[in-house]
């Protein structure tokens, strides 16, 4: 009997602090439902409201123009992701394992562009490879012909690289700090050469971090808009296709359908990566 009483009082005691706690979520979730969830549902409906109905969602594979935009977007993002991961893990590991004068300054400079929005990144690419850019001036001096590639897919590649490298360097450094140095020593003492140690010990240990930051890099490149917009509005990637569909042709249904497809792609990339590696916070373009 006494056990029963304490049990009951204990339960009510525990229940009391949490009973109305759901009220705290009301303002935030109301905002979210009214301004994101409902509009998104509406966007899905608008996507199916065009002359072809719900078939508009298939247009991204049936229409050659959109399919081409989609393929170039995915290929570009894939190449950017691989290049970023390679460059950033190399630099990140180097910074994490070596001490030298000026290292904090180098790290600060490498992560300085973190807060640049896509438009500013685009402008940086113009500074490097644009008509009055550095690369153009240098090649002009050296070969008598200036190399200008900012206003094309190559410029966009450079821009996404610029955008992604600082983020991934930070992730790699954070992940490498948690590595157990004794594993590496063990491998080395068993006769593994540096390349083997890297491939068999370091890479597997860094894989979760690389998968999650790679997915963020990929999703950001797929959905980014500001950089492409700054470089040239005729670069053929899916976000630009959506933008042109909406503003130039006022084809609301098609732009809605394409942006839903784009959203599903980035969301799936991030969700897949998270199920493979733990948590991911998407980057901000």
């Amino acid at each position: 009997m006494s056990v029963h009483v304490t049990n009951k009082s204990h339960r009510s005691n525990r229940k009391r602090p949490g009973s109305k706690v759901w009220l705290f979520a009301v303002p935030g979730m109301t905002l979210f439902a009214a301004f994101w969830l409902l509009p998104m549902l509406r966007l899905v409906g608008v996507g199916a409201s065009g002359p072809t109905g719900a078939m508009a969602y298939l247009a991204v594979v049936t229409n050659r123009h959109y399919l081409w935009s989609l393929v170039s977007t995915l290929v570009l993002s894939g190449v950017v992701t691989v290049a970023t991961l390679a460059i950033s893990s190399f630099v990140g590991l180097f910074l994490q394992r070596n001490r030298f004068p000026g290292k904090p300054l180098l790290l600060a400079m490498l992560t300085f562009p973190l807060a640049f929005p896509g438009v500013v990144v685009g402008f940086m690419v113009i500074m490097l490879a644009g008509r009055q850019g550095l690369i153009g001036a240098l090649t002009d001096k050296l070969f008598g012909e200036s190399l200008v590639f900012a206003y094309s897919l190559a410029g966009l590649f450079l821009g996404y690289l610029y955008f992604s490298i600082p983020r991934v360097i930070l992730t790699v450094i954070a992940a490498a700090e948690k590595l157990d140095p004794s594993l590496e020593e063990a491998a080395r003492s068993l006769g593994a050469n540096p390349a083997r140690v890297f491939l068999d010990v370091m890479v597997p240990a860094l894989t979760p971090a690389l998968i999650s930051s790679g997915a963020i890099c990929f999703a950001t490149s797929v959905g980014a808009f500001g950089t492409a917009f700054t470089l040239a509005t005729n670069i053929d990637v899916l976000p630009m296709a959506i933008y042109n569909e909406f503003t130039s042709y006022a084809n609301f249904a098609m732009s809605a359908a394409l942006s839903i497809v784009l959203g599903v792609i980035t969301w799936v990339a991030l969700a897949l990566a998270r199920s493979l590696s733990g948590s991911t916070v998407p980057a901000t373009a």
Partner: protein
Amino acid sequence: MKQSFRFYLQLAFALLVCAFLIVPVVLSMLAGVTENFFVGLSSGFTLRWVLQVWDTYQMTIWRSIVIALACLAVTLVAGVPLAYMLARYKGGNSRLARVFEELLMMPVAVPGLATALALIMAYGQYRAFRGSLLFILVGHVLFTLPFMVRPVLAVMQSSQLAVLEEAAASLGASMSQRFFGVVIPNVMSGILAGALMVVTLSVGEFNITWMLHTPLTMTLPVGLADSYASMRLEVGSAYTLIFLFMIIPLLIAMQWVTQTTRARVRL
């Protein structure tokens, strides 16, 4: 000796990557104060371009500051209680809380273009709302809310908050007394980290804002895109210079907050 050769090779590569990131920034800063960038630095330094930007785009700077502060206020009022619910509802590991967390991340996971189109198609017909700064504020709040919720939630989950609250409750504190008297003061570090992130992101937000803006609600990044497209390189550079001077203090503050909180909490 071989080892040290490898070290210098790697250092050279790191410096090359650093140059790729920093050289354009330096070039653009210089271009912003150079009389004629095409001629070179020999044409002399001037503040003409900065003043021209100030004359043409001054309003975008004020608007961005106002929106960032309003965005901060809304994410504080909506986000901190929301984090509390996520940390406490059914002992902190209910499925509902996980779903909410997942949903909140959606405006960041999905391209800003999609969020903006959805907002326009759902609310675009309300002309007064569509043409006001409020419309842009809504977009920024959706995008930045998770960046307020997550650090606050992390602090709530890692500190001894539950014990402190129980103590307060056993002494007869009401729910609102506990929230304002115990919870808020104890999660200040998370709130500060979130607040800096929210302001920085809001000031730099372009993807959503570009679709939502009207000529009268142009923000700083939208103005930047406008100047890159239609003005000479020096003007775009001077404008970028102003933008950099706005975000550098925020970045330094953010660095400082993460360093001081990392000792206690892992964000």
